[in-house]
């Protein structure tokens, strides 16, 4: 078994408190229904946040609002980078993984990862390294429609390795993964935190992240 390739680390691995994700009075709605009202928090490098709550309460909506994919009803999200500047738009400094694989059913793993690497201007070898690290080597030339749910989830997680981005927004990253897969996901998250990133995980299942703060969403309010 070869050693897994390391994630490209940030040049400055010291925790630099200038990196900060700030959320002020965020209110989100979906389909006309208010899901989140007046949420405020901030996150520093190395922090992990678990967003917990039952299905349909708004965890995914919150992550998407943080990524800038949905416009919030009220409030603001701002990302301050390591050099103190304000990132606008902030999407390019974030990785987002949702339930879908992010590739069409006829695309292969290799094609999809190479495409994203090319699109983000990552090193061309990054796709191969990611395939290797996520133990997808044998399935690399299989089309998405013929992948198991674990392999699809690992494909989404492989995207995280293509480019070094400080913020990770992971929506139910463990779903569909077996024990080895969960361990791998946990290792990735730990490494990202150790190199000064911020990881926000939405889950309705205890993700056992060490020393994570928690945001608990309940229907109709936020705690």
């Amino acid at each position, binding site marked *: 078994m070869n050693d897994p390739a390391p994630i490209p680390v940030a040049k400055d691995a010291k925790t630099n408190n200038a990196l900060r994700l700030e959320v002020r009075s965020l209110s989100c709605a979906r389909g006309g229904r208010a899901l989140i009202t007046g949420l405020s928090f901030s996150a520093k490098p190395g922090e992990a946040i678990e967003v917990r709550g039952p299905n349909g309460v708004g965890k995914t909506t919150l992550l998407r609002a943080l990524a800038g994919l949905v416009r919030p009803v009220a409030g603001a999200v701002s990302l301050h980078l390591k050099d103190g500047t304000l990132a606008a738009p902030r999407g390019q400094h974030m990785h987002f993984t949702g339930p879908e694989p*992010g590739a069409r059913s006829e695309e292969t793993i290799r094609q999809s990862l190479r495409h994203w690497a090319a699109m983000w201007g990552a090193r061309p070898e990054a796709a191969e390294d990611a395939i290797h690290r996520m133990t997808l080597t044998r399935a690399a030339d299989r089309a998405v429609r013929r992948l198991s749910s674990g392999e699809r989830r690992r494909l989404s997680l492989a995207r995280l390795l293509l480019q070094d981005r400080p913020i990770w927004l992971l929506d139910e990253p463990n779903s569909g993964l077996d024990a080895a897969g969960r361990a791998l996901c946990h290792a990735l998250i730990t490494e990202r935190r150790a190199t000064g990133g911020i990881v926000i995980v939405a889950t309705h299942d205890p993700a056992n992240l060490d020393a994570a703060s928690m945001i608990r969403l309940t229907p109709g309010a936020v705690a």
Partner: protein
Amino acid sequence: MNQSHAFMAVVEREARLAWAGGGGAALPAGFYIGIATLVAFGLGAALDLAPKLAPAILWAGLSLSVLLSLDRLFEADLESGAIEIFHLSPLPLDLMITAKITGLSLGIGAPLAIAGAAAGLLLGLPAETLFWIAIELLIGAIALTSLGAIAAALAAGLRRSSLLVALLTLPLFAPVAIFGAAATGSAHLGFAAPGASLLLAITILAAIFAPKAASAALRMALE
């Protein structure tokens, strides 16, 4: 520059998927020839009318063939979450759509133009004009794909949206079909044909402005 790499990556992916995935370019091209043949059968004894009717048949057939390919533009990527990941890339949404339109046109434009020229031959058009006809069909395919992208974006995310897309594309395709048929009718005049310059004009306008309208619509589909 980040954006030009990202742009080319999207073009390459879209062209590759249009060419290879799910029947590839053969499907719209085959459909196009099929329609022309059906009409020729329908004319029956009045087959000597075919050359006069050919421009209309060619452009109606082109419109239908492009319509068929439009749902590849956004549906599959929306479902697979790829559009969301595009959002977190350095390419602004309207450029991403321009790239997709370019890619799709590259993928199906040439096959459709060739299929149309072949259909023109079947319908009795003089062989010397076929080159100009193919060029006009190629330009028309670009216009139709751009305008169709607006309709596809408006209906994106809806189940069974094909009927809505068809209805929306009707007024949008009409001018292209009108100018194109006029140009093809006098194809022996090449670019001096009436309608040819209008066809070019509408193609350029569509290529510039349609992505903006489509990106506004797609942004709504994301929320």
